[in-house]
């Protein structure tokens, strides 16, 4: 039976702080982005209404397209790398054996370290003169000359992807591991009785059951990659010749280096559209009844 309750003013005090923050620093800026994107707005000067000019300029801005494509390219390459490693790690730490908790912690530890620290540490490893990687590769005879890893997009992109894979694989590993453990052991036993081998079991039983969680982790990884910033700002500085500038990096440059707030907002709108599309996919998976 429902009891009749009076609306109590004190009740609203509970949600007030959260709602004030949400309104002032989320909803209002969000609306402002939309409005600003129609203005020419130098940070210190007068703003003028230019309607769609920013968007038209965006279409002709080669640097914008470069950064958008670069970001998507990065997301496209880093996600499979992350997942292959995450799957391997999750398989390796699934089960009960000596040291399993220690190994879980080791693989997960880089996730909790900041991207800034990780980028710095790897920049040192990749250093062309004193870096340990060039030394090891020369020692093993893989390369003759030290490679200038950060000097061209051809070498810096794989280098950054390698670093991010090391840093973030533990996160996807955990999701996949949790998914592994939702599969009832009895299913495997039944399959084994029917003569199914380990690989058949994995493809026919495990994969279909954990598909929703894997899909979710995939989208998380893609969203994270679309927002990439620190790793490129620090490791490649977006260069050479802005070939490794991500979309967030480009927004940062436009707004805070060249002080074009209106134009920066128009780029932000594109980023929001990309994120919105990804979130829609995510939302579909969240509402999938097969995910609990």
């Amino acid at each position: 039976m429902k009891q009749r309750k009076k609306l109590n003013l004190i009740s609203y005090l509970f949600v007030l702080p959260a709602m004030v923050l949400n309104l002032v620093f989320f909803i209002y800026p969000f609306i402002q982005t939309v409005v600003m994107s129609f203005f020419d707005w130098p940070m210190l000067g007068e703003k003028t209404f230019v309607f769609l000019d920013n968007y038209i300029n965006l279409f002709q801005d080669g640097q914008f397209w470069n950064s958008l494509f670069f970001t998507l390219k990065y997301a496209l390459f880093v996600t499979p790398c992350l997942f292959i490693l995450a799957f391997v790690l999750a398989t390796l730490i699934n089960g009960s054996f000596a040291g399993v908790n220690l190994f879980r912690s080791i693989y997960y530890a880089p996730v909790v370290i900041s991207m800034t620290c990780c980028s710095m540490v790897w920049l040192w490893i990749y250093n062309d003169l004193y870096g340990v990687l060039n030394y090891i590769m020369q020692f093993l005879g893989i390369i003759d000359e030290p490679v200038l890893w950060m000097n061209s997009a051809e070498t810096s992109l794989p280098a950054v992807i390698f670093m991010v894979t090391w840093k973030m694989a533990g996160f996807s590993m955990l999701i996949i591991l949790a998914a592994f453990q939702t599969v009832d052991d009895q299913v495997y036993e039944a399959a084994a009785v029917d003569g199914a081998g380990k690989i058949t079991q994995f493809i026919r039983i495990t994969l279909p059951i954990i598909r929703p969680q894997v899909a979710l982790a995939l989208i998380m990884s893609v969203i994270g990659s679309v927002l990439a910033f620190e790793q490129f700002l620090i490791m490649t500085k977006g260069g050479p010749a802005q070939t490794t500038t991500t979309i967030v990096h480009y927004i940062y440059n436009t707004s805070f280096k060249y002080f074009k707030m209106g134009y920066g907002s128009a780029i932000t709108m594109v980023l929001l559209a990309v994120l919105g599309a990804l979130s829609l996919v995510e939302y579909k998976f969240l509402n999938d009844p097969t995910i609990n």
Partner: protein
Amino acid sequence: MRPVTKKTWINAVLGVVFILPLYWTIVTSLKDRTEIYGTPPSLFPKKPTLSNYIRIFTLEDGLYLGYFKNTVIITIITIIVIVVVSVLAGYGLSKLKLKGKGLMLASIMAAIMIPFQALLNPLYSTMSKLGLLNTMTSMVLIYATFHSPFCIYMMKNAFDMIPDSLLESAKLDGAGSFKVFLKICLPFTWSSVATIAVYAAYTTWNDYLIALVFGNSDAIKTFNVGLTNLAISQYGTDWGLLTSSSIVGLVPILIMFVFLQKYFIKGMLSGALK
């Protein structure tokens, strides 16, 4: 005792490979300048020295040490703000009768979906209008706005688990609404509170972009920003100082990770649903 199996050995090899970058950082931080730039690189420091760590304290009359202090202050304040805001809102959205609750929940979910990276530019002009540019307050407000929605969502779920009948009987016994919240409901949710505190600490301590845009004056710079400034200094990169600072920056979070692993992983796993 768990059995030592083939898996243990494969993991041991892979684990060592995984740890190598961190090992290399520690080793570098313990070397002196000549050894850092010596070839071939030495895998153990020949003459271990703490000079790189000491320099953190003395550099530019303690200015650099101040970056660490700033980060600690900002992180602690942010944790408090996020926990208070999230616990209150989580309770309100779960257990209280409010008009427009659906709309409030929708705006919370929207803030989970849209990250601060996408709203950098208008946030800057909002802070500028409020006269909060280059203050710790602006950073705390932004962290609280963008990291509390997920925490509110977690707290709401935690409060949802408490049966309404418990609240009703407490009210019949004459407990006021705030007392019901504080004495009856809150004690049930301590593990969730711990999780969101850890989540807040982790995200704030590791943040770079907000600190870069909103905290660019020396007085409030965080160590992450200070670290990158070091790397891009005009005198070339000081790898000894850089590696020792990285270690100092990651040790607190790793210690927290070791002791609060349960909450850490729980928080990150739920964060995956973000």
